[in-house]
């Protein structure tokens, strides 16, 4: 019995040693694998930064050139940089596509959205009336459906209202009109606080879907409210619509806005520049959407006249 005990004790040393080896081996393997992951991540992250800087360089260059690139033109160029990174810039997509709405990214009270209804290069529509919008009214979609506008559980004060400033040509004279809509109510009701704004033609917290396809063909977006400008289409019979500018009112939140033709298509008015930076095996892509010839912010508040102004 004593002999057996003695033999067991000797074996324990080897077992403990083996256990220690197994523990240290596990630690070593986990550190080695973590080190391999860290090195891969860090290399990819550095390449990613280089690729992103290269893609930005490509966008900077195309923004400088964009003024001289006519709408509808197609092209590409390469930007080689010295730190083993380069960028490839292409421009071959123009928006809006036929029958699709032109959508602006969310804008707040301090900003505006401008939509061309005549071709930017041919505002009078004399030379080529085909490229100008032929309808006498259009639809405007607006409002972010991700906000809860419920009277009981949400923030109804965040429901946006819009001002639509329409510039049109009647004969040889350019004129303008302003229309106001409030998503606070559905037509024929007017907006909040007796503001006399028109209500939405359609309003839905779950979203009114419409084809926007700014980037992807067949892409749809959702909006809270749909209105028709002008409310009575006969107002613009026999005139050529030139431009519509939309501003957000009331809401402190930012809201998307889109303008959709009721017949035919809007003139092509914006280009999408795509710059892909490459460094190592990492690619980063930046897309910039640039509208042609946007009038400055103060344009809506300037009085234009061919005659002298009496300032008294």
């Amino acid at each position, binding site marked *: 019995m004593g*002999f057996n005990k*003695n*033999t067991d004790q000797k074996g324990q*040393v*080897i077992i403990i*040693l*083996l256990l*220690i*080896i197994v523990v*240290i*081996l596990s*630690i*070593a393997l986990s*550190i*080695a694998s*973590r*080190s391999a992951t*860290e*090195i891969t*991540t*860090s*290399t990819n*992250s*550095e390449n990613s*930064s*280089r690729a*992103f*800087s*290269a893609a*930005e*360089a*490509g*966008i*900077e*260059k195309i*923004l*400088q*050139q964009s003024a001289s690139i006519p709408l509808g033109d197609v092209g590409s160029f390469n*930007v*080689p*940089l*010295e*730190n083993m*990174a380069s960028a490839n810039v292409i421009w071959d997509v123009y928006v809006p596509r036929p029958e699709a709405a032109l959508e602006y990214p969310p804008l707040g009270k301090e900003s505006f959205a401008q939509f061309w209804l005549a071709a930017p290069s041919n505002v009078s529509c004399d030379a080529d009336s085909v490229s100008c919008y032929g309808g006498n009214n259009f639809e405007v979609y607006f409002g972010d459906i991700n906000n809860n506008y419920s009277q009981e559980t949400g923030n109804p004060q965040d429901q946006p209202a819009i001002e639509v400033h329409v510039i049109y040509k009647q004969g040889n004279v350019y004129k303008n009109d302003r229309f106001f809509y409030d998503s606070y109510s559905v037509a024929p009701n007017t907006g909040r606080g007796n503001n006399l704004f028109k209500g939405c033609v359609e309003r839905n917290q779950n979203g009114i879907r419409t084809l926007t396809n700014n980037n992807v063909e067949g892409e749809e977006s959702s909006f809270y409210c749909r209105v028709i400008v002008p409310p009575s289409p006969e107002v613009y019979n026999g005139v050529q619509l030139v431009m519509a500018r939309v501003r957000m009112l009331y809401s402190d939140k930012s809201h998307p806005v889109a303008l959709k033709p009721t017949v035919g298509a809007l003139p092509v008015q914006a280009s999408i520049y795509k710059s892909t930076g490459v460094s190592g095996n990492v690619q980063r892509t930046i897309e910039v959407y640039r509208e042609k010839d946007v009038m400055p912010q103060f344009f809506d508040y300037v009085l234009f006249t061919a005659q002298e102004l009496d300032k008294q």
Partner: protein
Amino acid sequence: MKNCLKSTSQRGVSLVEIVLVISAVLFLGLLIASLASPIASINKSRHTSIAKEIASSQIENLRKQTYDILEGYEPEEINFTDSRLTSLSSSAAFYKVENCPIEVCALGELAKKVKVEVSWQESGETKKVELVTIISKGGIGQ
């Protein structure tokens, strides 16, 4: 006879046991020694990531400045500081604004080539992260 055999097995240690123990101890020593290399790699990766973040944020800072101010910076290397540089040993950081090279800006674009470099010491060697981009007049962030 029986007693004699019992006594021999109690006193001696077999050759196999000795070889096993020696190889186990050697293996253990090798394992511990080889741990140093992955730990150094992890540190290097961490330092590279910090340097990359410093360089990226400096490029963003330069983009926010007006083109006229950028023109005033060229062509010297200008050192800059960042609180994260203290995490890197013997670190240095600079940016350099140059005219856009002719192979990039062949059409005479109003643009500058901007290089940001962050360097530090790691195991007796100098390591660096270098980002290069173009900043143009009226471009991103201006």
